[in-house]
């Protein structure tokens, strides 16, 4: 269990026994000792208590392992609490989610049985993840949060909305459906948040977003967060925001903690190359990106044949399957995830320290979001790009657009660039309730306020790390495969393991 850490700045309020009591009672996880970059450390010295947040919220923040606000949190939280509309830009993985969840929890009134905040995200995985942040930070606030996304049973959503919902996290299509049917009453929803706002303002979603806004009160507050803003945001701003407050923490585009390399590889050599990377790199968890769903599945099969466990995910999979893959990868039950760009935005898994672009992306935005899956919250990460001759144009353009340099892969890669010294302190993702993801609508049960923050077992992590004394290079043995027992037969193909083929023995 995590040790109690009371090393916080002195509360600016009266320092009475009552104040000391609530801090000593906190159940704080073990401190994350990994080095961090200025992407999250370059603040003006404010603490969460300087924002005068309610005590129940501060308890949730500290028990989630948060110690100090990141730059985007420091700038956005106090302004959001004042009620201003906000346009906020910050790098991937620097704490944008908490920057809008914390003021939301501060402003929502638990005693008012109405939907008071709507958080819009572009993907279902991101909706699950965001709702989990809401529930973790707000676990003492008595606030009920519901997730609603496409691909799940509409009837379950309708039943859930008969109960108390204070914060609704969803994807645009489903939210519009519920609002249009008058199942979700947004007339008291005074807080509207768009994460990944550049995606949300794209042609796919813009019309839906504007239809949803017509169900909200005219004087609602709007918060827009993204790493990049399209030019079209100005049109949206003029139409829907009232004298917005702009925060721009993007003096450069790429994260400081991510080291980027390219390897020049013929297409037919890519598997050989990947096999070597697996054996030589010290991977905690890795995400491998391909440019098409077909290649995702083929590559996952080949990786399994090579003897490494992996999951895969792409847009053509069923929602239940995607949820399960997402959940288990986040929990560290498998080491490698092969996916398409479906998972490039917002997915936050601190244990991912390597991103491999098996196929090089065509645009700078895609590249930026892909490599942003490692190096989360100012930590270190490694991005390796497999480049063939035809990729040289994209490589050149992406370097020019991002103002970054992608160096040639060295003979040996310094482990200090991407490997944590003490993997025990790597934060485990906030657990998604086991019960919730088995249900199609993923209803959020109200947690008892006395429930302790549960840290899942850590037994999987040691298997991922090569012992420091190990000097020789050899193929890394795969972790024990998850048991097939209890899985419905139709779900077996998630594992990308062909039937009848046995695992190689070492």
């Amino acid at each position, binding site marked *: 269990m995590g040790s109690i850490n009371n090393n916080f700045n002195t509360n600016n309020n009266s320092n009475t026994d009552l104040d000391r009591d609530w801090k000593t009672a906190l159940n704080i996880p073990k401190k994350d000792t990994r080095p961090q970059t200025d992407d999250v450390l370059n603040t003006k010295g404010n603490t969460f208590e300087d924002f005068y947040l309610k005590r129940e919220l501060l308890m949730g923040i500290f028990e989630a392992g948060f110690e100090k606000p990141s730059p985007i949190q420091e700038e956005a939280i106090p302004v959001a609490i004042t009620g201003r509309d906000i346009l906020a830009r910050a790098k991937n993985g620097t704490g944008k989610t908490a920057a809008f969840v914390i003021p939301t929890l501060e402003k929502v009134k638990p005693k008012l049985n109405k939907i008071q905040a709507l958080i819009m995200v572009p993907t279902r995985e991101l909706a699950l993840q965001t709702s989990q942040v809401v529930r973790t930070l707000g676990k003492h606030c008595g606030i009920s949060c519901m997730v609603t996304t496409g691909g799940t049973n509409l009837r379950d959503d309708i039943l859930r909305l008969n109960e108390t919902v204070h914060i609704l996290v969803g994807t645009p299509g489903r939210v519009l459906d519920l609002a249009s049917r008058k199942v979700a009453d947004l007339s008291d929803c005074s807080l509207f948040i768009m994460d990944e706002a550049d995606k949300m303002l794209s042609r796919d979603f813009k019309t839906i977003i504007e239809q949803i806004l017509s169900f909200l009160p005219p004087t609602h507050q709007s918060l827009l967060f993204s790493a990049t803003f399209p030019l079209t945001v100005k049109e949206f701003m003029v139409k829907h925001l009232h004298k917005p407050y702009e925060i721009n923490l993007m003096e450069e585009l790429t994260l400081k903690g991510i080291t980027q390399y390219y390897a020049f590889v013929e297409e037919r050599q890519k598997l*050989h190359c990947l096999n*070597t990377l697996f054996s030589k790199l010290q991977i905690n968890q890795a995400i491998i990106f391909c440019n098409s769903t077909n290649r995702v599945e083929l590559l996952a099969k080949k990786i399994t044949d090579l003897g490494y466990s992996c999951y895969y995910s792409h847009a053509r999979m069923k929602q239940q399957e995607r949820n399960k893959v997402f959940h288990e990868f986040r929990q560290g039950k498998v080491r490698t995830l092969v996916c398409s760009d479906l998972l490039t935005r917002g997915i936050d898994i601190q244990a991912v320290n390597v991103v491999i672009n098996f196929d090089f992306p065509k645009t700078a935005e895609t590249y930026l979001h892909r490599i942003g899956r490692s190096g989360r919250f100012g930590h270190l990460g490694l991005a390796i790009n497999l480049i063939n001759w035809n990729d040289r144009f994209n490589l050149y353009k992406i370097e020019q657009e991002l103002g970054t340099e992608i160096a040639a892969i060295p003979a040996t890669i310094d482990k200090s660039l991407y490997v944590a010294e003490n993997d025990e302190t790597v934060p485990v993702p906030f657990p998604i309730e086991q019960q919730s993801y088995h249900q199609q609508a993923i209803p959020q049960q109200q947690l008892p306020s006395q429930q302790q923050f549960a840290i899942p077992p850590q037994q999987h992590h040691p298997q991922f790390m090569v012992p420091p004394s190990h000097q020789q290079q050899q193929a890394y043995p795969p972790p024990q495969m998850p048991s097939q027992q209890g899985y419905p037969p139709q779900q077996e193909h998630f594992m990308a393991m062909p039937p009848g083929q046995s695992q190689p023995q070492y």
Partner: protein
Amino acid sequence: MSQFVGFGVQVELKDGKLIQGKIAKATSKGLTLNDVQFGDGGKSQAFKVRASRLKDLKVLTVASQSGKRKQQRQQQQQNDYNQNRGEHIDWQDDDVSKIKQQEDFDFQRNLGMFNKKDVFAQLKQNDDILPENRLQGHNRKQTQLQQNNYQNDELVIPDAKKDSWNKISSRNEQSTHQSQPQQDAQDDLVLEDDEHEYDVDDIDDPKYLPITQSLNITHLIHSATNSPSINDKTKGTVINDKDQVLAKLGQMIISQSRSNSTSLPAANKQTTIRSKNTKQNIPMATPVQLLEMESITSEFFSINSAGLLENFAVNASFFLKQKLGGRARLRLQNSNPEPLVVILASDSNRSGAKALALGRHLCQTGHIRVITLFTCSQNELQDSMVKKQTDIYKKCGGKIVNSVSSLESAMETLNSPVEIVIDAMQGYDCTLSDLAGTSEVIESRIKSMISWCNKQRGSTKVWSLDIPNGFDAGSGMPDIFFSDRIEATGIICSGWPLIAINNLIANLPSLEDAVLIDIGIPQGAYSQRTSLRKFQNCDLFVTDGSLLLDL
């Protein structure tokens, strides 16, 4: 000739060019190569070489030792796959077991095949060509994508601070050229002398000291002399002054007795309120008690009302600055304009002057914009303290507008929305009827100010000083003589909370917060009067100048 299929070869043409590739087909007429790499670095999936152009051929690699049967099977699989998927993947049919047996991939050797520096230098030269003249389609696509997004260092609102804030002052400069204020100031000086003489007489005469009730009435009279109508010195007006003073006294006594009757049935429960975080029980005060505290502080401790007012302004400004975002937001280097605070003030010592001092402390550091609108025209201000604070306020950067419409015009030209309204139209020692008097113009003006305030956006916070406009300070009930009232979201209490807050909680649904502000009353003041002893044993302001109440 099929026996050569799969061989890796290097072909030299008669013109000296070198070509590497894998034989896909060989006939007497020529070769068909796959995975072709040209001597100049160019690549191609397939290339045909006529026999007539061949000069030399060198074998680099040989095909794997596979039988025809395997070749046919692979060919069939590939055909089936291509037919189904329409996509060719080179590593699709790779034998995984062979990859495992191979040595590590030689990254360094492969890197030697790609001279990034030279390639990029070449691309950079081509980068000068206009997009429409480029041959590569994805380059045009890249260019379009680049134009679709703001640059990382480009603001969506680049000139947010360049609005008309600095132009508002010109309007006030014109109004300060009036000669009348100087004349009014002289009259105020005379008044101050009279008040001072009266205080001295009161202290020296021993007959007054033991009579508590007389002292109470005396202080009410003292405050009544601040009424603007006292300026008229004619004999006929003196008679009218007496009538007005008596009416004012009667109203205050009624207010006090009403307050007493309200508190008596509820015993002690409604005479205390709790602080928000520390859960202290805090005694509540009547308006008369607040006046007594102020009087004692002035008489016995020589801390006059100007000092108390300044203490209030400093501590209240820190509280409001925190509400506006604190140090994280209030920075001179912020690219966003400063937050905007609007003060609705009356010509009254205990509300208007107090609010102007607060406004000055908010704006004098340059972090907050403050605009003030009075219940009367700026030229008609008569209270000496209000006029003094107004002058200091303007010198420190505060702005003044003279009508609701000019306030709205100013707001339209600013990039700052109104974030806080300070309602200082009515203090705890007067009513709206007192402010309006018999003037329908002022009454209409006050109503329009209330209406403007109530229609602000939901995110605008309205903080009333001591008592919201339109409510009785003694009871907290709506003013029966005035139908309009401010929908305050918060109350700023000067020193101690009014008992009226109990009824305000019920009558004012918009009320969310109340805060106590330390105005600097010495602890010893509470032992000077029996009626103030309940305030002695309460640790209110130890390390902070403000304290939130739990409503």
